[in-house]
């Protein structure tokens, strides 16, 4: 790319454009829209110039070139509209219409169809009778999306998106001549094909040829802009609402997070909203059965029991589990309910299960526990180090940005025990043994130091603790690390050199780093690497934990944590407490409360008497489910506020029907610290209530007066008490969300952290060393079991497993095993295996795959009837008490 600018004239307007851009792009930047069908300006892909609609007149050119493929030249004189051009364009559209069905009156795309738009704009009234219309032929029973050849104009946008952006290549042109169509391989059903059903082809289809299955009737639907309710990327989407029902999801390019792109869950995962299994009335357990009750009965019962338990056992006998799935405002209220209305700091949420080590580890190293950079910066990184993150499945839109960075020429290093998708495009794959991350990290640090690749200036001016760190790292030459990790020392060297030499080096990780007994140390180890090389505190360079839930970042920000008040203000600090005591008009407890892990153990020991859980399913999501069930069973009172009767709600004393993301207003904070709106699109089913209203009602019943008219009011209260959020309010984030820290109303938000200065002042090198996982293999349990997420389901599966298409694509639990190990067991691909650990035993279908190395098995965690967490180990990170979900010793046998 050259920085040289070129001057040209388009429609008598002087336009300046960088050399290498096309006439189309130059015109677009000048606000001139040239008609186009096959070119998709949103894509970073080379144009095919197939439709010939974007032709322009260039002075001196023999024939009108296609502007999408015509580079700008100094002094060029371009006309985008003339009688001759209109004639060419009319012919193009007439030919396309000649075999296009004339059923616009009943087509769902009517009003949005680009073919129709141009036919209208060019005044085409007569149909050219060159050919017979192609017969309407839809894919029968396509689970989520299907293709109708008759509406297809063969522009190839879908093929380009699928092959070159999504890099899946599920569809291509099939056949030739009039018989040409866009298709998956013949004889394969869509759910068995490679199609990931992201539906990004739908987003670019100019007609209605590719469409969602349920989006029939989408025409005229109201569009409600909101934030996706699945992972922490925080994609913006429009819920299409008709007759009080969500009938589809569409996207537009006017947002900085995901643009038009979504993954399969975002685009099709909305069917759970009006699923008949939704909870519609409060339930109270009477004579062992959960029976319908009124809100007055249910909340009255909860309030009186909580009051009794508090009177008899003190406020710390009560615990609250808040929800990373709920809004910021609701998380703020749960914290307030615990601290102000009940008087305990026993409040936590499922960040404990995933990224608590991130919050703790990065706070120690940098002073602030969040993703340092923004999603939009990823394509500009030149070295990406992805460790313990199956990004394309768990955070698909971040995965797209990583693919884009690699297309831009970046080097990709992947450390993961499995051959995850990213290893297809990685320059270096380090298939380390599970739980040996820190040996790898310190081995890389050793190479960087011993080969003189460290950033001495950065270490000197911006960090502390280097000497002690260097001493430890000296003991980890790559050969030693290689032996522990099970990868060649030379690969560790190459990875270290590539990372150190980067201009803009970015680290990405998720739970493969945190869900270990050394989770916090792993995080600090990664922070060390950035301090050593100076790859932090600048654009596209940093350490990026990808958060798992839509609002797990926000739930932490809101102080739904046992040791901090909203805005990460430590509860043990008197000054912080005093501020909140004044605002909340109560005296606050100064002792940090219990984590989820502590609460479950205290329940087991019968020291915790009551647990109030909002939007969380610990029986499914915590390690060692058998223990969790037993612990919850010993409580005097278990209240679950939920949208479905999940595994935990089934054993609750009171179940309160709540609302999902489509049924309320509020905000979610995504993984890049961006606070974004969610908006009410439909009514909650039956008597189900918005979560914040339930919490306000309960606070009042507990004798703590609370009165909010809207979530916006709750946000204002929070922002007034939390300096790093003080500049954010609903009107500022009406269109585009803001990234914290945002301390004042004129502050633009913070794209990347630690520029010039770390939150804590100097970056702190930590002395952290490899330690073995809590459970190692032996003769009885010879295999390492690791668990994780998949593309088609979300966490405990209560929502995605109620979406027809997702369930069809991924209907049941499975266990990935190397074919060699499977053969040794006498098992067969597709047959059932029994997986047993010291804690439990479940049955799942065998998937023989070389993705996984011998000696290891891997299972997803989404399936209640065969829950992987029956097996996982209740050993915890020594700092944050996050369980070691990623390593357990297991035995596998043929079941049937």
């Amino acid at each position, binding site marked *: 790319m050259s920085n040289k600018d070129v001057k040209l004239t388009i429609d008598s307007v002087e336009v300046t454009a960088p050399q290498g851009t096309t006439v189309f792009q130059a015109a677009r930047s000048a606000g001139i829209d040239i008609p186009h069908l096959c070119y998709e300006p949103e894509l970073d892909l080379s144009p095919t110039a197939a439709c010939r609609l974007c032709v322009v007149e260039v002075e001196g050119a023999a024939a009108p070139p296609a502007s999408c493929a015509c580079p700008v030249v100094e002094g060029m004189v371009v006309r985008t509209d003339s009688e001759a051009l209109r004639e060419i364009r009319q012919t193009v559209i007439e030919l396309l219409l000649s075999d296009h069905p004339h059923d616009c009156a009943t087509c769902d795309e009517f009003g949005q169809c680009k073919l129709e738009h141009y036919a209208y704009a060019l005044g085409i009234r007569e149909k050219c009778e060159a050919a017979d219309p192609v017969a309407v032929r839809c894919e029968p029973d396509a689970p989520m999306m299907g293709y109708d050849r008759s509406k297809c104009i063969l522009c190839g946008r879908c093929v380009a998106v699928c092959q070159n952006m999504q890099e899946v290549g599920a569809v*291509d*042109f099939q*056949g*030739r001549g009039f018989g040409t169509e866009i*298709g998956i*391989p013949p004889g394969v059903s869509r759910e068995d094909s*490679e199609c990931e059903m992201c539906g990004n082809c739908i987003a670019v289809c100019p007609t209605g040829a590719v469409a969602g299955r349920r989006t029939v009737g989408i025409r005229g639907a109201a569009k409600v802009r909101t934030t996706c309710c699945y992972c922490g990327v925080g994609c913006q989407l429009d819920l299409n609402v008709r007759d009080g029902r969500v009938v589809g999801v569409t996207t537009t390019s006017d947002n900085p997070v995901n643009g038009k792109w979504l993954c399969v869950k975002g685009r099709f995962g909305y069917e759970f909203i009006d699923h008949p299994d939704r909870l519609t009335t409060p339930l109270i357990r009477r004579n062992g059965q959960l029976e319908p009750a009124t809100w007055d009965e249910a909340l009255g019962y909860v309030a009186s029991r909580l009051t009794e338990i508090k009177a008899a056992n003190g406020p710390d006998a009560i615990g609250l589990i808040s929800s990373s799935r709920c809004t910021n405002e609701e998380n703020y209220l749960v914290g307030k309910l615990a601290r102000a209305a009940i008087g305990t700091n026993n409040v936590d949420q499922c960040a404990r299960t995933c990224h608590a080590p991130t919050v703790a580890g990065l706070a120690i190293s940098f002073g602030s526990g969040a993703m340092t950079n923004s999603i939009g910066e990823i394509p500009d990184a030149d070295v990406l180090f992805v460790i313990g993150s199956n990004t394309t499945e768990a955070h698909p839109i971040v995965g797209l940005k990583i693919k884009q960075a690699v297309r831009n020429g970046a080097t990709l290093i992947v450390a993961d025990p499995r051959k995850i998708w990213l290893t297809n495009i990685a320059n270096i794959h380090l298939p380390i043994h599970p739980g040996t991350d820190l040996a790898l990290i310190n081995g890389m640090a050793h190479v960087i130091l011993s080969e003189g690749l460290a950033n001495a200036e950065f270490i000197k001016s911006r960090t502390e603790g280097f000497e002690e760190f260097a001493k430890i790292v000296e003991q980890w030459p790559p050969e030693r690390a290689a032996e522990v990790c099970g990868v060649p020392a030379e690969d560790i060297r190459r990875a270290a050199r590539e990372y150190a030499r980067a201009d803009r080096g970015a680290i990405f990780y998720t739970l493969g780093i945190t869900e270990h007994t050394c989770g916090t140390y792993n995080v600090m180890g990664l922070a060390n690497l950035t301090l050593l090389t100076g790859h932090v505190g600048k654009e596209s360079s940093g350490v990026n934990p990808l958060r798992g839930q839509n609002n797990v970042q926000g739930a932490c920000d809101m102080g739904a944590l046992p040791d901090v008040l909203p805005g990460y203000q430590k509860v043990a600090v008197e000054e912080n407490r005093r501020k909140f005591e004044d605002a909340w008009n109560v005296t606050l407890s100064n002792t940090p409360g219990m984590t989820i892990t502590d609460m479950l153990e205290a329940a087991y020991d019968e020291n915790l008497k009551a647990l109030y859980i909002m939007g969380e399913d610990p029986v499914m999501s915590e390690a060692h489910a058998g223990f969790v069930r037993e612990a919850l069973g010993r409580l005097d009172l278990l209240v679950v506020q939920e949208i479905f009767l999940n595994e935990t709600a089934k054993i609750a004393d009171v179940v309160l029907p709540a609302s999902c993301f489509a049924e309320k207003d509020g905000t979610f904070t995504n993984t890049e610290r961006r606070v974004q709106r969610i908006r009410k699109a439909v009514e909650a089913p039956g008597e189900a209530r918005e979560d914040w209203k339930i919490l306000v009602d309960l606070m009042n019943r507990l004798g703590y007066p609370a009165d909010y008219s809207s979530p916006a009011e709750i946000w204002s209260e929070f922002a007034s008490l939390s300096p790093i959020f003080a500049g954010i309010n609903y009107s500022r984030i009406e269109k585009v969300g803001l990234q914290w820290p945002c301390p004042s109303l004129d502050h633009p938000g913070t794209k990347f952290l630690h520029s010039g200065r770390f939150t804590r002042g100097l970056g702190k090198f930590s002395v952290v060393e490899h330690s073995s996982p809590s459970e190692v293999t032996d003769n009885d349990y010879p295999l390492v079991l690791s668990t994780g997420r998949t593309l088609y389901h979300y966490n405990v599966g209560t929502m995605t497993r109620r979406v027809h298409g997702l369930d069809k694509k991924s209907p049941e639990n499975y266990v990935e095993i190397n074919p060699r190990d499977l053969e040794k067991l006498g098992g067969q691909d597709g047959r059932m295996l029994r997986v047993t650990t010291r804690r439990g035993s479940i049955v799942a279908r065998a998937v023989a795959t070389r993705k996984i190395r011998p000696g290891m098995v891997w299972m997803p965690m989404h399936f209640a009837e065969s829950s992987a967490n029956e097996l996982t180990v209740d050993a915890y990170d020594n700092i944050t008490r996050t369980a070691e979900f990623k390593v357990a010793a297991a035995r596998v046998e043929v079941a049937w």
Partner: protein
Amino acid sequence: MVESITNECVPDVLAVIDEMNVSSESNLIAVLQDMQEHFGYLPPAALQEISSRIHIPLARIYGVVTFYAQFHTEPRGRHTIRCCRGTACHVEGAGRVLRTIEKELGISDGETTPDGLFSLETLGCIGICFLAPAMMIDDQYFGNLTTQRVGSILRTYGARSCLHE
């Protein structure tokens, strides 16, 4: 000559790919031609293997396969009949010839007889217009065809007529 494709064929597929030292999309067509030479057609399992071995999406490979008339994804007969439908043959009664072949063998254009003996194709012109109407069986030309001659020629290749069954 035609092997039925089973998992046992996969090592063959691998051997062919190894031998060709395929590393990119650029010689995909040559690989497909070799495959077809080897198996008589392009078995789905072979295409799947090519796809995973040389990292070309299966849909893209099928895009190439379905674009060119020379590629077949179904097992082929031992003999390929190519019935000419060029202008000269058309005028001289190619339609009658094609209908006769179809009736004699009980198959339509593009199909293969159940006994695996014949596959039937039609094409634009085989270049012997002076002998119209004409057809080819494998690389042998037959011209000045009549309905009777077509039947007897097919029988010399071992066809049992379907006409009287």
